């Protein structure tokens, strides 16, 4: 073995390139009892990056509840988590960020983010049935903001559409906090029979490692470390990744076909961040084994690549397959049928080592456990001072709107409230022939063919709320996603999440991260929805300032009888409308406060006991077939929730005598958690009231469905006029035109 010892400790510049601190370097050298060579240094840096090693977040993530009767595969075990949904079926899901690449090349950055999360799902053997995308953009009145937003949406659509996986939901929020650092979180959901769940473990010495898919180029080298340092553009050195959804589609079909037609595959792992490095190390780590890689067998796209580059390349659309000894050809035959190139590049060993060779020469030899157990860091959790500045909200200093109708129209047209259709109509949300509730509803609902069931999916997370109170923001992300799911009638079962925060080395961001996780944990315990997978994206900063702390939760629910489903649109003239829930509307942290007064202030609240009750009630009412519609009351408050149900159903609202206590703007536009707007035929009113009483959920009748106007307290406007403001708001903003009116 000829390891060239590097006696000279590496320069600061080299350490920065591999994103290791000097202490980490010494720690690694001590573990090895020798200095790592340059290839090893790159491998260690990649594996110990936040992206792969979770060095700042791992100690905190353990607080999230991860056990439950339905959980088949929990967080950290495989590429994605899995939940039992009955009928012998499981849902596999995960969300992942591609924030930094999307800031550099929005179209390809977002597209390859979708590609990566799809691979995480089909490595489990599951067929992807849905994608969701949670997006945060900087202001759209800024040219670069629009360029990023349009590019990101285009890239997500291109990749998902081409793959034939419907993009059925997601969210979009716009705020100055994300200028220069947009967030792109992509979630994928797969369906599989329990017994077909496939592991990503490399077990059994002598079994063969096959690399299949795209040739390896110099793409995205240092993608993982580049997601772990503050200034992505300056530190970015590798070539930007360009995705190939067509090849990914071939990979998907070929992998599923091999799994179904032979038992020669023992493990399946995609190549994501740090490419061959993390895929081989993680597979070996799961199997408790070692691996030998012979790099000369890796097909290259570029001439003259070094072992360092081959090990760290992040070329997309590649998979590592563990095939039973002597059976690689059975697997490769199927890849050939799909026109995919594959090579046997190594084998599983019992050494516990990552043993990388290039033409017989040793290039790196590192213990697997050293690579999978990155050092972790914890810091004191100190409440940052800014919270005392933004917390108090002096309502008396704020005039109430003179003209509530025009304030309402302005709110409807604002990019955070206006219709998302300009985005989701660019996504094929119907392919697969399962989409029962398409984007635009509270949660997407997909039927499960061959069963009476459907699954509901929603992603939620509010950066502004989390900024004002990280604990409440974390809890609200869980509560709101579960509430959206409950509004279709489905029972929330489990969630995945992506934590988008600033640098954990800054005490404010660390506090936000820690408290948001505490809030998520509290809500998840109360709602009995364990976490099954997730991803962490730290160092999100824009202009030297951390983004708003943005936990994104992707919730899964199950509806036993798809036929029971409830939509958000008003359905019948004359139906009664009521608000369910105890939440008192407040302007704290509301969209209205930000639009009308340019204020981000206040103390958002959540009561988890109210939350669980209102969700249980709405599900019971839906299962009892009592409701015509149910809609979560969130951004923009009651007036906006009523308008959205009206637009969805094409029917107006008569709620002229809105019960008000206190300020009018509060009751119209105030936001609070735990409220749901429902409608039902007058004949059902008594039963609805009785059910609410049984669960001790306050119910407030507010008016009737009907007519061609929106009459909400003092607001009075033709439905068509309001709908125009709402449907054009985001479209015009994305096109660079001022909102109407």
């Amino acid at each position, binding site marked *: 073995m000829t390891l060239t010892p590097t006696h000279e400790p590496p320069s600061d510049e080299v350490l920065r390139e591999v994103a290791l601190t000097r202490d980490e370097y010494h720690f690694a050298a001590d573990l090895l009892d020798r200095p790592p060579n340059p290839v090893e240094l790159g491998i260690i840096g990649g594996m110990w990056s936040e992206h792969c090693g979770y060095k700042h977040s791992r100690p905190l993530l353990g607080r999230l509840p991860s056990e439950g009767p339905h959980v088949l595969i929990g967080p950290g075990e495989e590429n994605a988590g899995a939940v039992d949904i009955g009928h012998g079926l499981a849902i596999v899901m995960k969300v992942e960020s591609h924030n930094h690449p999307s800031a*550099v090349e929005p179209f390809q950055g977002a597209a390859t983010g979708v590609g990566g999360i799809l691979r995480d799902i089909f490595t489990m053997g599951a067929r992807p049935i849905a994608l969701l995308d949670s997006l945060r953009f900087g202001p759209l009145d800024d040219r670069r903001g629009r360029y990023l937003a349009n590019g990101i949406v285009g890239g997500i659509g291109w990749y998902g559409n081409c793959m034939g996986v419907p993009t059925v939901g997601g969210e979009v929020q716009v705020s100055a906090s994300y200028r220069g650092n947009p967030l792109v979180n992509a979630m994928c959901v797969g369906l599989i029979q329990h017994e077909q769940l496939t592991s990503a473990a490399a077990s059994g010495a002598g079994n063969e490692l096959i690399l299949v898919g795209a040739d390896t*180029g110099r*793409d995205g080298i240092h993608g993982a470390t580049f997601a772990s340092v503050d200034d992505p553009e300056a530190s970015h050195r590798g*070539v*930007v990744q*360009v*995705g*190939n959804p*067509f090849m990914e589609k071939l990979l998907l079909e070929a992998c599923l076909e091999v799994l179904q037609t032979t038992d020669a595959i023992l493990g399946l792992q995609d190549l994501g961040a740090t490419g061959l490095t993390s895929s081989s190390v993680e597979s070996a780590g799961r199997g408790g084994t070692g691996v030998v890689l012979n790099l000369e067998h890796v097909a290259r796209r570029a001439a003259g690549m070094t072992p360092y580059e081959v090990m760290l390349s992040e070329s997309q659309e590649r998979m590592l397959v563990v095939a039973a000894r002597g059976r690689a050809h059975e697997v490769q035959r199927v890849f050939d049928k799909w026109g995919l190139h594959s090579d046997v590049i190594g084998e599983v060993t019992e050494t516990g080592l990552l043993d990388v060779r290039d033409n017989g020469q040793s290039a790196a030899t590192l213990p697997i456990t050293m690579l999978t157990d990155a050092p972790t860091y914890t810091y004191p959790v100190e409440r940052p001072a800014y919270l005392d500045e933004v917390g108090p909200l002096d309502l008396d200093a704020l005039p109430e709107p003179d003209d509530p109708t025009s304030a309402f129209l302005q709110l409807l047209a604002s990019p955070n409230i206006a219709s998302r259709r300009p985005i989701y109509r660019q996504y094929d949300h119907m392919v697969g022939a399962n989409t029962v509730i398409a984007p635009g509803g509270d949660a997407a609902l997909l039927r499960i063919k061959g069963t009476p069931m459907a699954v509901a999916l929603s992603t939620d997370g509010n950066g502004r709320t989390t900024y004002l109170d990280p604990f409440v923001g974390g809890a609200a992300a869980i509560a709101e996603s579960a509430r959206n799911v409950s509004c279709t009638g489905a029972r929330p079962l489990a969630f995945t999440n992506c934590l988008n925060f600033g640098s954990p080395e800054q005490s404010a961001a660390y506090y936000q991260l820690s408290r948001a996780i505490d809030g998520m944990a509290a809500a998840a315990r109360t709602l009995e929805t364990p976490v099954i997978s997730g991803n962490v994206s730290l160092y999100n900063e824009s202009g030297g300032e951390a983004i708003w702390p943005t936990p994104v939760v992707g919730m899964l629910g199950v509806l036993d009888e798809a036929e029971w489903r409830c939509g958000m649109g008003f359905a019948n003239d004359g139906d009664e409308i009521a608000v369910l829930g105890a939440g008192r509307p407040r302007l704290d942290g509301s969209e209205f406060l930000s639009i009308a007064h340019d204020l981000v202030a206040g103390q958002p609240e959540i009561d988890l006991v109210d939350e669980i009750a209102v969700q249980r009630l709405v599900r019971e009412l839906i299962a009892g077939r009592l409701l015509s519609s149910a809609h979560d009351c969130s951004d923009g408050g009651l007036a906006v929730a009523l308008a959205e149900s009206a637009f969805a159903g094409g029917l107006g609202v008569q709620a002229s005598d809105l019960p008000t206590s206190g300020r009018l703007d509060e009751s119209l536009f105030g936001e609070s958690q735990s409220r749901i707007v429902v409608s039902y035929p007058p004949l059902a009113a008594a039963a609805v009231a009785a059910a609410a009483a049984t669960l001790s959920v306050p119910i407030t009748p507010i008016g009737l469905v009907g007519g061609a106007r929106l009459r909400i307290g003092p607001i009075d406007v033709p439905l068509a006029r309001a709908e125009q403001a709402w449907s054009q708001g985001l479209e015009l903003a994305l096109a660079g035109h001022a909102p109407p009116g």
Partner: protein
Amino acid sequence: MTGQHFRARVTVQLNAGVNDPQGLTVRGSLHDLGFAEVREVRIGKLINIELAAASEAAAAERAEAMCRQLLVNPVIESFAIEALEPVADEVAQPA
């Protein structure tokens, strides 16, 4: 409208090393069709712009500004203004 009109011919190509899935796929199809001799295919864009400008130099400067501001993302692409020639001012185009 003062000044002349010019036609600028801009080519945009993926930078060396950047993956070109389209080129790779087309190469595969050419192989399937029997063109086994094809070693590599890379696909770029050809953008023809007709613009008004006071002089050829001014037109070139503007075309270059368009490339930098909109037509090209330097992270993955590079461009060349390959030709720039005056055009006879025929029928005006709709705005």
